[in-house]
C-alpha cells in the first residue's frame, strides 16, 4: 500500500467511530490535516491573490527545446438550434478565438460534452461548428455525448478513445472516462432517452459512480507508457478529473487509486480535464491536474470545498450567460514549463477576496442529495 492510500485509510478510520459513523471529535493530526486539505480543501487554507492567472508547471520539453501551444475547448452542451442558441453562440466565440491564436496552436483538444443529450442533431451541429478550426483536432467523449446510443454516433463521428500521440517530446494521451456506468436502465426498462436524461443530470441518483478509467484501459495506459522515459512529459486528457474531488457529481474517476499506481513511475504527468466547469488545480503525488472551464455554464464548487492548491474563480453573474465560462490556451514553453491561461470572458478570473469567491459563497451551506429520482 502506498503512502497516499495509507493516509486515506488512516483518515477514514479516524473520521469514523467504532460504529462506522463519522465522528466530529476525531483527533486531527498534522498529516491528516494536510491530507484533508489536499483532497477536500480547507476553508481557511485557500489564499487569495497568491497564484498568478497562469499556472506554471515544471514540465520539461526535452526533445526540442521549442515552445508550442495547444488549445482546449469542452463542455459546450449544445442543444438543437430550435431549443436554444446561447450555447452555440459561446461555442462559436471560443472556436473563433482558438482559430485566431497567434502564433497558432499546434492542435485543439475537445474535452467532451459536445452535446447536451447525445442527440445526433446536437453532435452534428458541434461537428459543423468545429469545422471552423483548421488546425489538428483530437477528441475525447463526455457522458452527455454517450448515453443515448452508448457512444455509437460519437465514435463514428469523432473516433474512439483511448488514443495517444507524441508531439515535440511530449506523449499526449486521450482517455475515455465516461462509458463505465453500471447498467441501471435494463431492469427498469428505460428508453435510451430516459437513460440519457438520468446520465445528463449531474446530481442524479441512478447514474451512480459512473466515471472510471476501467481495467482494460488501465492496462492499455500501462502498456502505452511502458516505452516512454520515466522523466519525459506526459499529458493526459480526460473528461473527469483523475483524482477524488467530489464523487457525488462524478468529479473524480472511481478507480483513481489504480490510475495513480500506473502513473507512479513517471515524474512529469499533467492531467487536463473537463466536466467540472470551473477553475481547479490539484497535485496528488506526481500527478498535476488542471480543471478547464466550460463554454456552457459554470458549476458551483463542491460543497465540501476545493483542493487547497486551487485559487477559486470569481463568482459568476447568473444574469450574463457569457460570464464564468470560456476555454483554455496552453503553452509548453522553451524554458520547460506548461502554462495554462484561462480565457474566461471577463477581466477578473480568479477571486482576490473572499466576498468574490466561488467557495466563500458556500461557507454556511450544507446540502442533501435529491429524493425524487430514486426509482
Amino acid at each position, binding site marked *: 500500500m502506498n503512502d497516499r492510500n495509507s493516509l486515506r485509510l488512516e483518515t477514514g478510520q479516524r473520521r469514523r467511530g467504532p460504529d462506522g459513523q463519522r465522528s466530529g471529535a476525531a483527533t486531527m493530526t498534522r498529516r491528516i490535516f494536510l491530507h484533508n486539505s489536499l483532497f477536500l480543501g480547507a476553508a481557511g487554507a485557500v489564499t487569495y491573490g497568491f497564484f498568478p492567472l497562469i499556472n506554471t508547471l515544471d514540465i520539461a520539453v526535452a526533445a526540442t527545446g521549442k515552445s508550442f501551444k495547444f488549445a482546449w475547448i469542452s463542455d459546450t452542451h449544445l442543444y438543437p438550434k430550435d*431549443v436554444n442558441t446561447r450555447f452555440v453562440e459561446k461555442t462559436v466565440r471560443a472556436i473563433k478565438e482558438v482559430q485566431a491564436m497567434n502564433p497558432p496552436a499546434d492542435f485543439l483538444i475537445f474535452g467532451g460534452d459536445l452535446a447536451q443529450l447525445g442527440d445526433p442533431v446536437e453532435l452534428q451541429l458541434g461537428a459543423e461548428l468545429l469545422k471552423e478550426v483548421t488546425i489538428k483536432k483530437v477528441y475525447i467523449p463526455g457522458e452527455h455525448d454517450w448515453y443515448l446510443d452508448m457512444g455509437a454516433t460519437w465514435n463514428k463521428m469523432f473516433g474512439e478513445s483511448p488514443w495517444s500521440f507524441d508531439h515535440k517530446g511530449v506523449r499526449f494521451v486521450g482517455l475515455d472516462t465516461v462509458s463505465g456506468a453500471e447498467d441501471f436502465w435494463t431492469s427498469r426498462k428505460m428508453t435510451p432517452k430516459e437513460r440519457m436524461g438520468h446520465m445528463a443530470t449531474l446530481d442524479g441518483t441512478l447514474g451512480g459512480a459512473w466515471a472510471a478509467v476501467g481495467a482494460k484501459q488501465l492496462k492499455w495506459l500501462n502498456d502505452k507508457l511502458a516505452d516512454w522515459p520515466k522523466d519525459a512529459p506526459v499529458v493526459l486528457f480526460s473528461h473527469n478529473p483523475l483524482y477524488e474531488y467530489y464523487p457525488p457529481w462524478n468529479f473524480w474517476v472511481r478507480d483513481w487509486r489504480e490510475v495513480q499506481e500506473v502513473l507512479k513511475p513517471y515524474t512529469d504527468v499533467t492531467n487536463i480535464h473537463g466536466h467540472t466547469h470551473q477553475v481547479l488545480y490539484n497535485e496528488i503525488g506526481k500527478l498535476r491536474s488542471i480543471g478547464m472551464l466550460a463554454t456552457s455554464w459554470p458549476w458551483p464548487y463542491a460543497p465540501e470545498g476545493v483542493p487547497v492548491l486551487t485559487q477559486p474563480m470569481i463568482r459568476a453573474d447568473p444574469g450574463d450567460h457569457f460570464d464564468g465560462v470560456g476555454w483554455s490556451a496552453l503553452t509548453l514553453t522553451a524554458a520547460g514549463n506548461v502554462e495554462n491561461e484561462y480565457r474566461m470572458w471577463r477581466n477578473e478570473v480568479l477571486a482576490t477576496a473572499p466576498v468574490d469567491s466561488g467557495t466563500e459563497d458556500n461557507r*454556511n451551506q450544507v446540502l442533501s442529495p435529491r429524493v*425524487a429520482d430514486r426509482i
Partner: protein
Amino acid sequence: MAALLVLSVDIELAFAHKAPHTKEQMAAFEQVFMDQVKAGDLLFHGDPATEKRLGVKLSNTGMACAMCHPYTSDTHPQEFPKYQEQMAKFATLRDMINWCIEKPNEGEKIDPDGEAMKALEAYIYWSNRNSKLDPGRH
C-alpha cells in the same frame, strides 16, 4: 392523498392541540411536506409532467434550475431576505426564484403564492436544512 385523508380526519385534534399528537398525525404532516419536496425536486430538475400538472413553464431554453444548482447548491435560502444585486432590491427567496425563472431560464414568472412556488421553496429549504441561518449575507 392518503396523508391528506389522515390529516382531514384528525384535523380538529391537530389544530386544537387538545390531545397529544399521534404517530399517524406526525407521519401525515411529514408526508405532506415530503410530497411538496418531491414535487419541487421534479420542477427544479425540469420534469415536464410536473410542470404541466402545476400549470407552469419554468424554462424556454431547455435549461433546468438544477443545471446551475446541483443539490440546490448556490441557492442559499438561508441568506434571504437580503439585498440582491441582480434585482437591485431587497428580496426574498421567492423573488430570487422568479428572477432565475425569468432571466437565465427565460421561462414564465410564477405566482409567488402558488403551488409551484411552494413546492420549489420546500425542495430548496429541505435540501439546505442543515445550513446555518444567515439572513442578509451577500
